[in-house]
């Protein structure tokens, strides 16, 4: 890897946020922080998906502390980044595997198309590089070729993939996978699941069933339930997290596709509303592009400071 971790993350993030920083630059080079300026700044935050409520709160803080002062572009960026980083700091918690568990069971959940399978593939690759033995369970038995997609990742990383024929009961498969992982003394079991919209009660029941069934094999499992979120998602992410958290006790978030033009500002709103740990952010196609979440870097990237 030619680039260091920070510069790589920054590159990924700043690409996605070049626009917002440009606009902040345009608005705030030498300007009095008056009502109009604050209103423009609020618009910029809203356009980054922070949501109207969070944007209003952050701008309210600005109004209280800095109203009427002459500010430069850089000051505004730094202050804004600081404000956002303060909200994000408590949720920046890396995923810690419990090495006492053989295996530590990770259940990957989320709506369709957020990148669950790809995230598992990237994690498997990283674990292999760290000498952690992973087993993958192809629990998406619904979507066409989802099993084959995970198998390709298994081939790439050398991790065993447990799978069944199409439309296998995913709970049964998860149970078998846990049994196999235990036999092999694996360090971590990554269970893929079919994407499901959070408002489909029957599909959410199915997810609860997977958890019930693997508890029969290991009462403490799953040790992590990761909700994978797409950074392009708007305010609906709040509903997603709310329902998944309630139904399957989500322990942490993974935010994918931050290397696009989406700014992922919804993460700030999620941190305020739920305070769930953000374990990883995805900033590129490579396995190494799945990174621990750094709030300072993310906040500075978000405003272009």
């Amino acid at each position, binding site marked *: 890897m030619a680039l260091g971790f920070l510069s790589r993350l920054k590159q990924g993030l700043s*690409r*996605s946020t070049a*626009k917002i920083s440009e606009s902040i630059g345009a608005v705030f080079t030498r300007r009095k922080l008056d009502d109009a300026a604050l209103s423009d700044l609020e*618009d910029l935050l*809203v*356009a*980054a*998906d922070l*949501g*109207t409520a969070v944007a209003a709160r952050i701008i309210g803080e600005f109004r209280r502390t800095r109203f009427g002062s002459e500010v430069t572009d850089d000051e505004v960026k730094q202050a804004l980044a600081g404000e956002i980083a303060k909200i994000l700091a408590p949720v920046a918690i890396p995923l810690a595997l419990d090495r006492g568990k053989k295996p530590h069971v990770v259940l990957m959940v989320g*709506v*369709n*198309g*957020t*990148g669950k399978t*790809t995230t598992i*593939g990237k994690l498997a690759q990283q674990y292999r590089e760290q000498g952690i033995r992973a087993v993958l369970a192809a629990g998406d038995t*619904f*979507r*066409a*070729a*989802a099993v*084959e*997609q995970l*198998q*390709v*990742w298994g081939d790439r990383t050398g991790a065993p993939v447990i799978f069944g024929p199409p439309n296998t009961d995913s709970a049964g498969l998860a149970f078998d996978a846990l049994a196999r992982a235990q036999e092999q003394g694996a360090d971590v079991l990554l269970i893929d699941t079919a994407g499901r*919209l*959070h*408002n*489909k*009660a029957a599909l959410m029941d199915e997810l609860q069933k997977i958890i019930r069934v693997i508890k029969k094999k290991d009462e403490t499992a799953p040790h992590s339930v990761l909700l994978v979120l*797409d950074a*392009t*998602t*708007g*305010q*609906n*992410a*709040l*509903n997603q997290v709310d329902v998944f958290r309630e139904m399957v006790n989500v322990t942490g978030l993974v935010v994918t*596709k931050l*290397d*696009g*033009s*989406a*700014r992922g*500002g*919804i993460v700030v709103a999620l941190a305020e509303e739920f305070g769930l740990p953000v374990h990883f952010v995805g900033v590129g196609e490579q396995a190494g592009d799945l990174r621990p979440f750094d709030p300072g870097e993310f906040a500075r990237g978000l405003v272009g400071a």
Partner: protein
Amino acid sequence: MFDALSNKLSGVFDGLRRRGALNETDVMEALREVRLALLDADVALPVVKDFINKVRERAVGIEVLDSVSPGQQVVKIVNDVMIEALGGAGAVALNLNAVAPIPILMVGLQGSGKTTTSGKLGLRLSQRLRKKVLLASLDVQRPAAQLQLQQLAERAGVASLPIVPGETPLQIARRAMDTGRREVFDIVVLDTAGRLSINQELMDEVRDIRAATNPAEVLLVVDAMTGQDAVNTAKAFNDAVGVTGIVLTRMDGDARGGAALSMRAVTGAPIKLTGSGEKLDALEDFHPERVAGRILGMGDVVGLVEKAAETLDQEEAEKLAKRMARGQFDLEDYAAQLRQITKMGSISSIIGMLPGAGKIQQQLEQAGGANIDKTMLGRQAAIIGSMTRKERKTPDIIKASRKKRIAAGSGTSVQEVNKLLKQFDDMSAMMKRMNKLGQKGLMRHGLSALMPKGMMGGGGRPFR
């Protein structure tokens, strides 16, 4: 999560009871609420600004009519402007005016649902329009993506282009068109890999594919949950390949779908189809007038009626109606009705489709009725299931010891059995009243004639 916009607007205009024209200040205040509602529904900021300007132009100076509240008038203007912005009433069909094989190019971000939509499109074109369809996956990026489309094609009963490993997307596209010509296909659907709008290399690639195949439709597939980024994505794809139509996926979720408005505004291309489920036949025409209400949080009455028509067993419903009319409604019928309701989804989601539902939901919650959900319906079904046939036909015979048995059998309590019987009594009484009133009475007094006093709250005015 959000109150219906109409509720908020009624609030804004509550103090405004005088007659005359709406002035700028009145309207501005209302439009602040509209602005927030649109942003909360994920409509992109620049699009919101345009929208608000249009509404203001139309709303300032209109006469406040006697019969309608100013709030409702503004809501109507907002709704009208929204429908226009989404493309006007009615659906826009796919453009298939080209020489066969007609290429249709599918583009979009990763995970927006291109491959699934391609499969659905194959089924729709072959079944509804009797076209011979070839599906071809140009996705050499995501592992097993080509296999996914192949499997979807099999399920849809349409052909798919044989997979040749090592080909570039452009080569696959050319081979697909050659195969289309040689084997006389009507339509060739070209499914491309998901790509970020800022990835220049991949955007160039899709531009080349477009140039090589000259598609009749370039469909941009977009997730209905997309946030503010919708404008960037739409602009990038439109600049690169000239989008001719938009497909909005995951409309079966609970996102308000403001991205629809953003996409339409940026590309000028009509939204042609919506994906609303995991099954291959869950691809529908886009009706602006229905989605307008959804974005504004004003309910989707047509959607409700369609959903009811789809899921309710027509025959059973008619049988039920007849028995009701004769006053023969018993617990068996009640159970049958419960089953039908369960099929339609939770009551609150149904209520959510009704206009002005925000208020009703609030009232229900205040009345402690917030727990009307599937689990309760399930328990009621279990209670009825634990009764004997005789008990269901003549509930009057159910006294203390029978109640105990039923409660034990259904895993509930005597109180719950009582509650169910009381509910059934109320319902029977309501039906008798309905029969007495007859068709005309119902028209004259509306639903309020049937409800116990106070249940309809302030909204119990007769329909006229």
